[in-house]
């Protein structure tokens, strides 16, 4: 059998990757409190327990506020940065872009600790706002990376053509550039939303008393009786992620189809 070992390797790899995720819904719908085989019976009580948990509701609300705000802020900032870096030449550009992209490779713990010390020094109270600040800092480089490639693939003469036909720089941006980079903007929004939603370290350091979802989840693992409910929460999150990914891919493909470009393979 040719490539036999390679097939075994691929199989082991996939099991390792997906088995834990498949276990999530199995225990989420299981009747028992202990996480162990054999399964005892079908139940949706853990999902009901989620709905009744006020702490969880607060955490979800905090996380959503943070993730949505972060996505919008970092994408907006990234639109300007990506446009400037792909279209204009200015002194110190390489250094400046390097500094902006640095958080991409900087350990998050460093960002979290340094932000925390500065906030404490400045006497700013920790809250959702400070988490947003931290998340925008780490999400913006991802957004810039996505949007730069979107702006880069824009033919410069499209802008010139619109300008030539009487439009102002602003209306050219609105009528031509924005629609053409829209798929990039949507993936930037979705990706920064996802990063912010499951980010733990910064949220843990900077949230003060307003816990986010990941912080809440970790805290629940201290109580064995809460674990099945966490499994139910995990199941919901997996479904949500697949949905978001699907939407992102849909827009990516539609963007490609509209501009008539060849599909060079996305993430689905």
């Amino acid at each position, binding site marked *: 059998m040719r490539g036999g070992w390679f097939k075994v390797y691929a199989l082991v790899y996939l099991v390792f990757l997906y088995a834990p995720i498949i276990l999530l819904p199995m225990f989420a719908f299981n009747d028992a409190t202990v996480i162990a085989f054999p399964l005892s019976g079908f139940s949706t009580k853990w999902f009901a327990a989620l709905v009744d948990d006020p702490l969880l509701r607060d955490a979800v609300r905090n996380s959503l506020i943070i993730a949505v705000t972060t996505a919008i802020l970092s994408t907006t900032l990234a639109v300007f940065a990506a446009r400037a870096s792909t279209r204009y030449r200015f002194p110190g550009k390489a250094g400046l872009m390097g500094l902006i992209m640095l958080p991409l490779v900087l350990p998050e713990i460093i960002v979290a600790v340094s932000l925390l010390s500065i906030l404490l020094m400045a006497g700013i109270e920790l809250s959702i706002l400070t988490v947003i600040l931290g998340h925008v800092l780490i999400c913006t480089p991802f957004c810039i990376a996505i949007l730069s490639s979107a702006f880069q693939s824009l033919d410069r003469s499209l802008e010139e*053509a619109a300008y030539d*036909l*009487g*439009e102002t720089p602003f209306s050219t941006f609105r009528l031509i550039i924005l629609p*053409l980079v829209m798929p990039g903007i949507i993936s930037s929004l979705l990706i920064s939303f996802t990063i912010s939603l499951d980010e733990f370290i910064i949220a843990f350091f900077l949230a003060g008393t307003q816990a986010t979802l990941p912080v809440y989840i970790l805290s629940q693992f201290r109580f064995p009786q809460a674990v099945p409910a966490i499994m139910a929460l995990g199941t919901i999150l997996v479904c949500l992620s697949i949905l978001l990914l699907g939407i992102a891919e849909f827009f990516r493909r539609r963007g490609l189809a509209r501009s*008539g470009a060849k599909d060079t393979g996305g993430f689905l």
Partner: protein
Amino acid sequence: MTAKPTMIEFRDVQKYYGDYHALRGINASIRAGEFFSLLGPSGCGKTTLLRTIAGFEDISAGAVLIDGKDAALIPANKRPTNMVFQSYAIFPHLTVEENVGFGLRRARLDKAEMGRRVGDALAMVGLTGFGKRAAHALSGGQRQRVALARALILKPKVLLLDEPLSALDKKMREQMQVELIKLQRQVGITFVLVTHDQEEALVMSDRIAVMFEGRIVQLDDPVTLYRRPKTRQVADFIGTMNFLPATLLSDTTDGCEVEVAGLGRCRIAPDQAPPGGNGQDTTVGFRPETLTILFDGQAAAARETPGTVEEVVYYGDMTYYDVKLDGVASAVRLSMRNVPGRPVLDIGTRARVAWSPDALVLFR
């Protein structure tokens, strides 16, 4: 012709990209309603010069005048010029109709009027019925037409075209050349075309400016440009030309007397001997079609030199021969039309070659 007013005037236009001197003092006038071409090799500054008219490129010194007004005072989106881009720059997210009507957006026309003008523009370029198509679902030739219709819908005073046909295959290109000429006559707008294809320039233009390294070297109508190129560089760039060394014997107002090695003394009319230089060592040039092979039984010509065929290239309608003329240092190229009953000569054949001193051009 000369009575036509000037539409565009370049006054000592200079352009620097950093240290690079891209336009080195351009002086020229483009007349209203003419088909004007900028011709030159890659990198000579044709696109840069065209973009100074459109307003996409600021000039470093000098002035560009459009219809008598200093263009520096008019931003690109207010200039009475429209451009057809080399890549066509069709907006990919809009339909053909929306692309063509894009320039009318600001005019705030009612729906019916808008539809009528877009329809007219599409009809003009032969794309009636294509309005609802997505722009990316078009062939190269169709994109080209959409770009033309979109640029012409605002009825600009000047239409700028940057190598509009270079992305098309040969057949399509020749067809579009004819269509462009017809279109230009029909709308009467000044066309300024950038091309590096000398044949295209000769076919389409009323006048051609030949550019080398940021300068216009010669500005003439196609016939003059082909018959009387002012420099060897121009002669070499446009068509094929044979060059032979010659000694200048006399230079008066009614012509020059030269001694061409192997061909003897020749008289060259003053308009075929542009002034310049002052040495005795010069070069004469002549086109392949000004030489003729005389076949058996044909009467002798006034000037005739025997030679040996060294190379034969058969083109169907024409045959090109490289012939080593007796007493002439290098082989010359000549072309013969293939008419019925006339044989194609073999390499090594001895032949009588007739030539005419009237066809000589002097370079010094």
